[in-house]
Structure formats: structure tokens, C-alpha cells
């Protein structure tokens, strides 16, 4: 057994650092390396999807067709959505989970480290395939990120086949990533860390992972039905054979609605970590936060048809999905209340992560309220497929999910790099983004209510002013992300030395280890600090 013991010591010992060269990244099993790769990949996709968004906004700067062909415009709206959802937001959250979950719960790594690396490396290949469709005959997918049949089946360009397989690959990656996170949180906690002591970022990710495992296979199912309809003559989405195009929408949104919570629950977790730190108070209503998150997740399976109010649902369906949707405002309200109550009478300071977190609370709530408006079925007949919808989901996704990711990156960068970030540049980035995002998306509420349809490259003259404003805001927001890039790179390369507890009010195991965190943390489970016992 002695040889065995030595192999164990060398293979699990925390004494050696990362491997040299490119092999470190290709073959790694280290959750920190994999987390970094996820985050860089997501940033790359964020810029790629952002360029597409700017192309869309540039075309919409003035009425009439100026810059791009309508067909290409459709490809841009489609690819922008797909890349931002599956390439930017989701991998960013997985990257944060990879970095932080093992450190927060006192685990030596993720539960299944090799599978962890596979989850990541599938993504660059999947997106290479997806982006390559731009250069194919017939162009890239042009049917919107929701790829409704029959637009995505009967009338789709040939590249739809590659799109389907790219979605399959992303799904495999997401499912494996989610399984890993669940196994890690359920099985790898340090002794004494009970479920109700789990940091909220871990709780929200646990529930998100459950959602991912539940709905990514449904997405795989619906694209498989598309594939069969396109190439093998089935009639799932063709009424001529007894199927129904509306069936596509049902199956898609059964995936799609939980999917939007997949993109926001980890954001809730990040905000619930950051606000207590900078308010220097414990999170208000920890248990209710956990239950609220779980309720949102469960409700998310019962509201999918609120995306389909105008498709001709039976009246009972309209009513059920309207009321069920409104019910979600209750647990969400609990969360917003708790964040505000955490800040109430706190000793607040306003460093960059906190600024983004505060903006999140305010602007996400605006997005939530416009969601409540859209949930009212009779009113939705007016709003459906207008820029009001675009305004709504960009408010929850950009100053919601994306701001939370940026808040998280700023918050944990000192732990990752060992350097404090440049506060001045951080604040500059915040204010430019805050102004940019509101100038871009707030006017869309007005043009949407006035009836401007989404996904159309041209519009009636009365919408011209607000569109011009929105485009200016979009370019401001887009280019101010270069400040973010600069800031992250600067922080990796140098800066004021960060202490183990980089922020004064920060609590939790991740702040007990040195900054930068050593390559291997917690080879043996740690004793919980006083504040967590």
C-alpha cells in the first residue's frame, strides 16, 4: 500500500502549481483554471454578440434600409440572441460557480474535475460551429433565437442543421456542468456547513443546476423534432400531417421559461453575497431567500405559455398562465425586499461591486415590473412582439444578469488575481454602463407601447427619434465595456495588493484563503470560521 499512498500524496497533494504552457489549459482538472476559461470565453462571446447588437442598432439609427440587407439583419438578431444567452450569460455564471463554489463550501475542487473540463471545452467547438454558419450558403440561422417552426423548419436556410447540432453540444455541456455543480454542493461541503448555512450564491446555483438538468433535455428534444421534420419527413410541427406548429412553441417555452430563470437566479445569488458585504450587515431573511428562490424555480415550470398569449390559446389557458405568472412576483418581491432590508441602517460604502449591485436591484425591478405588465393577457395582445418586450427582457438581462456578472467579477477579482481593482476605472465603467443601458433600453418601452414591432430592420417615421437615442445609448454602452476589459487586464497584471479578506465586510470561507487563492485550496476540509458556525 505504500506506493499507493505516495501516488495519493502526489496526485492530490496541494503543493504543486499549474502545469506550464498551453497544456495547462487544454488538459486541466483545476476548477480555478476552468472557471477562468469559462469567464474569458464568455467575455469573448459578449463582445462578439455585442458587435452584432451594434450592427442591429446601427441599422435602426434611422428609418429606411441603410447598412445591411434585411436577411442579414435577421441573422444578426438571431445570432445576437443565441450568442448572448448560450455563449455569454450562461458560461459566465458557470465560470463564477467553478471559481467560487468549491472555495465557498470548503471543497478541494469540483466533484468530477475531468468532466468539468469537458463541459468547458465543448463550448468553443459548439460556438465555432454556430458562428461558422454565417459563412455558409444561405446564411446563418435567421429565424430569431426562439427559432419558431415553421420558420426554422420549412423556411429555414440549410445551416439550420448545424445550428441544431450546436444546440445539442451546448446542451451536453450545460447538463454536465450542472450535474457537477449539484454533486459538488451536495457532497463536498466542509463538515459543519449544513444546507441552511450555505452561501446564497451556492443555493441559487444549486437550484439553477436543477433547472438546467430539467430543461436542457427538453431543448434537445425540441431541436431533435425539428431535425426530424426537416430531414426525415416527420410532421411534428406540420398540421398537414396532424402535428401543430404551436406544439413547437409549447415545448420550446417549457424549456425557455426556466431558461430565463437560469440566467437570473445565479445573479440573485451574487447580489445576495455583495450587498451584505458593503452594507456590513448579515443578509436579511436568509431562509426566506432560499425558499423564494425555490418557489421561483418551481413556478417557472408552470408559466411557459405566457410567451404565447396571442397564438390562440383556449381561454382557460390564458387565465391560468396569466395568474400563475403574476404569482412569481411574490417570491421575487420577497427577494427585493430582503436586499433593501439588508441595506436598511447598514454602514454602506459604494465600491464598484456595490454600485453594480445597487443598479441591479433598481433596474432589475423595473424589468420585473414591465414583466408583470406583459403577464396581463389582454394587455399583452397590444405589447406582443413589440419593442416593449425587447425593453423588458433587456432590462432583466443586461442591467440584471450582465450587471450581476460584472458585480461578481469586480467583487471576486481581488481573490482571483491578488490585486485590488482600479476603483476609479471601475466607477467610470459603472457610470458609463449605467447611463448607456438606460439610454438604450428605456426609450424602447415607449416605441414598443406605440406599436413598433421587433425584429424588423425598418420602421415608421414616428419612431425615429427614440430609435436614434437608443442607438446612441447602445454605442455608449458597447464601447464602455472596453473599460471593463481594460480594468480586468490591469487587475490581472498588477495593482494594490489584496488582503485575504479583500473587502472589509466580507464573510465566508472564500475570504479565509489568501489572495490570490492558491492553485489548490482546501485539500483537506477546513474548520468553519466563527461567523459561519
Amino acid at each position, binding site marked *: 500500500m505504500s506506493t499507493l499512498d505516495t501516488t495519493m500524496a502526489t496526485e492530490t497533494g496541494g503543493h504543486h502549481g499549474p502545469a506550464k504552457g498551453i497544456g495547462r489549459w487544454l488538459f486541466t482538472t483545476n476548477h480555478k483554471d476552468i472557471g477562468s476559461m469559462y469567464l474569458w470565453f464568455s467575455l469573448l462571446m459578449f463582445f462578439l454578440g455585442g458587435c452584432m447588437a451594434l450592427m442591429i442598432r446601427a441599422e435602426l439609427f434611422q428609418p429606411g434600409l441603410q447598412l445591411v440587407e434585411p436577411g442579414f439583419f435577421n441573422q444578426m438578431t438571431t445570432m445576437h440572441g443565441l450568442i448572448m444567452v448560450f455563449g455569454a450569460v450562461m458560461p459566465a455564471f458557470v465560470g463564477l460557480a467553478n471559481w467560487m463554489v468549491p472555495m465557498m463550501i470548503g471543497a478541494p475542487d469540483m466533484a468530477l474535475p475531468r468532466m468539468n473540463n469537458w463541459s468547458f471545452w465543448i463550448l468553443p467547438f459548439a460556438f465555432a460551429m454556430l458562428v461558422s454558419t454565417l459563412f455558409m450558403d444561405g446564411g446563418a440561422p435567421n429565424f430569431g433565437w426562439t427559432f419558431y417552426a415553421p420558420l426554422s423548419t420549412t423556411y429555414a436556410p440549410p445551416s439550420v442543421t448545424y445550428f441544431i447540432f450546436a444546440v445539442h453540444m451546448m446542451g451536453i455541456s450545460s447538463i454536465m456542468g450542472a450535474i457537477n455543480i449539484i454533486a459538488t454542493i451536495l457532497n463536498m461541503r466542509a463538515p459543519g456547513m449544513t444546507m441552511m448555512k450555505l452561501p446564497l450564491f451556492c443555493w441559487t446555483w444549486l437550484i439553477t443546476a436543477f433547472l438546467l438538468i430539467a430543461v436542457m433535455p427538453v431543448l434537445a428534444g425540441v431541436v431533435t423534432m425539428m431535425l426530424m421534420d426537416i430531414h426525415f419527413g416527420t410532421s411534428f410541427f406540420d398540421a398537414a400531417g396532424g402535428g*401543430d406548429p404551436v406544439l413547437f412553441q409549447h415545448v420550446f417555452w417549457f424549456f425557455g421559461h426556466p431558461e430565463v430563470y437560469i440566467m437570473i437566479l445565479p445573479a440573485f445569488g451574487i447580489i445576495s453575497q455583495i450587498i451584505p458585504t458593503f452594507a456590513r450587515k448579515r443578509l436579511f431573511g436568509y431562509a426566506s431567500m432560499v425558499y423564494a428562490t425555490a418557489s421561483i424555480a418551481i413556478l417557472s415550470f408552470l408559466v411557459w405559455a405566457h410567451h404565447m398569449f396571442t397564438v390562440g390559446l383556449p381561454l382557460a389557458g390564458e387565465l391560468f398562465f396569466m395568474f400563475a405568472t403574476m404569482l412569481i412576483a411574490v417570491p421575487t418581491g420577497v427577494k427585493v425586499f430582503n436586499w433593501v432590508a439588508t441595506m436598511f441602517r447598514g454602514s454602506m460604502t459604494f465600491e464598484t461591486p456595490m454600485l453594480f449591485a445597487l443598479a441591479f436591484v433598481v433596474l432589475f425591478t423595473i424589468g420585473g415590473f414591465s414583466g408583470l405588465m406583459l403577464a396581463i393577457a389582454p394587455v399583452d395582445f397590444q405589447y406582443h412582439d413589440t419593442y416593449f418586450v425587447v425593453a423588458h427582457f433587456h432590462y432583466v438581462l443586461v442591467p440584471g444578469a450582465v450587471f450581476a456578472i460584472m458585480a461578481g467579477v469586480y467583487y471576486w477579482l481581488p481573490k482571483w488575481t491578488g490585486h485590488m481593482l482600479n476603483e476609479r476605472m471601475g466607477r467610470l465603467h459603472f457610470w458609463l454602463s449605467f447611463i448607456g443601458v438606460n439610454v438604450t433600453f428605456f426609450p424602447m418601452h415607449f416605441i414598443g407601447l406605440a406599436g413598433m414591432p421587433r425584429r424588423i430592420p425598418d420602421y415608421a417615421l414616428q419612431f425615429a427619434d427614440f430609435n436614434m437615442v437608443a442607438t446612441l445609448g447602445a454605442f455608449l454602452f458597447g464601447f464602455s465595456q472596453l473599460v471593463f476589459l481594460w480594468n480586468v487586464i490591469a487587475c490581472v497584471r498588477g495593482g494594490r495588493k489584496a488582503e485575504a479578506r479583500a473587502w472589509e465586510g466580507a464573510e465566508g470561507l472564500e475570504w479565509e484563503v489568501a489572495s490570490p487563492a492558491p492553485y489548490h485550496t482546501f485539500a483537506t476540509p477546513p474548520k468553519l470560521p466563527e461567523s459561519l458556525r
Partner: protein
Amino acid sequence: MSHARYYVPEQSRWPILASIALFLLAYGAGTLMNALSADQGGGLGVALLLAGALMMGLILVGWFGNVIHESRSGLYSEQMDRSFRWGMSWFIFSEVMFFAAFFGALFYVRVLAVPWLGGEGEKGISQMLWPNFSAEWPLFNPPDAERFPGPGAVISPWHIPLLNTCLLVTSSFTLTLAHKALLKNARTQVRRWLFLTIVLGLIFLGFQAYEYVEAYHELGLTLQAGIYGATFFMLTGFHGLHVTLGTLMLIIILGRVLAGHFDARQHFGFEAVAWYWHFVDVVWLGLFLFVYVL
């Protein structure tokens, strides 16, 4: 011992290789399907697909071989075992949801879409498209009979499907007996019951293949036969694929038993395959009820 050091593997080449293999598989399959639908030869697609499949096969052998070696070297603690258990359970849950999508599609067309096409309910207005269409299930006469000629007949549940139900349910029992025997370290019996389980699985697959041939050649029940054929073949087809995979996994487990792997205390690989097999069995019961009988 429950907090013995958790095994964190060294760097591994399998994940990146597997990503390349998956990419070749996906790109090859896409290229092949596009070529076939455009009535072109599928040379490049077939080549990529085969290369990807071969590569993936080799990787799976190598990667699982690696894991088996580590397990048998005693590197895995009880905690590692629990990680594998969680991993496999949630993987099976994801498979359940995959089938749920197709079952959901089946229920939707049976309960809502086809009756609506036939003029029932508030949405019966859609009957304007095909005024002569009448709703029925199984759907022998799809609305547009030229594009989707309905099946001439459907598979009777009380012949091969009933037999297959018996076979699969029995195989679940024989597999459990094999597991019981393993817990008692009665290895001859493990081998015997495991072998029997595999044989039952193979007979099931044989019957299923026979049924497909009959459906295509005698009944006119095809993928193109309208929504009945589509749901029938997708549900039974994916189930059949899962049985194939399960049988393959059982064969590997039998091989490992013959090689002296597993003991009464540590045999998660065996259990994982058993869970998978029971899952496939339960899906079949759903299929038998909702696709064949009702």
C-alpha cells in the same frame, strides 16, 4: 474515513479529445443530413461522422479505463462514491426529461392538436383548412394525405409489444437477482443472472427490429406517415437506442465481473448500469401504455 482526501485527478487529455470527437460527430452528422436532403452524396459527412464515432469510442474506452484503474487502485473514497452516485442520478433525471419532451408532444397532439384539427372546441376554427378531416387516434388519415399518407395499420399491442414488456420486466428482475448475488459474493450466480439479463435485452432488440421491418414493409407505418408515425418512431426509437446502450453497458459490466472486478462492498459501476437499465424499463412501461395500448 469519510473525510479522507478527495481524489482530484491529474491533468487529463480525455476531455479535449472528447470535445474534438463530439465536434466531428456533430459536424459530420450535419453535413451528411444536409447532403442527403439536397440529394447529394454524403462523402465528407460520412467520413467526418465515422472519424468522430471511432474517436469517441476509443476515448470512452480510454477514459472509463482510466476511471476503472483509479477505482481499483483504491484512490476513491466513500465521498467520491457519493459524487458518482449523485452524478448518475441526475444524469438519469436528465434522460427522463428528454423522454418527457416526446411524451409531452404525444399527449399534446392526441388530446389537443388533432381534435382541434377535426373541429372540436374553441380552436375548431382551424378545420377550415381541411374541412373533410375527421379526428381519430391512431391517425390513419392525416389532413394532407398526399404529403403524409397515413399508416395502413398500426402495431397491435398484444403481440410483440406485450412479449417485449414481459422480456424487459423480467430482465429487471434478473438484474436485481444478479445484484443480490453480488452482495452475497456469489460470483457464479452474478455471471449467470447478468448473462440472462443481456440475452433478454438482445431478444427485446431483435423483436423491436422485426417490428420496425413489419411496420415499414407491411403496415405502411413510417416516419412520413403523419403524426402517429412520427411520435411512434421517435419514442420507440429513442427507447430502443437506450436499450442498445444499456445492453452494451451490461456487456461491459459482465466483462468486468469475469475479470474479477467488483466486490460486495464496492461496485458502483454495476449499480449505475442497473439504475440505467431500470430507468429504460420504466420508460418502456410508459411507452407500452401510451403508445401501444391506449
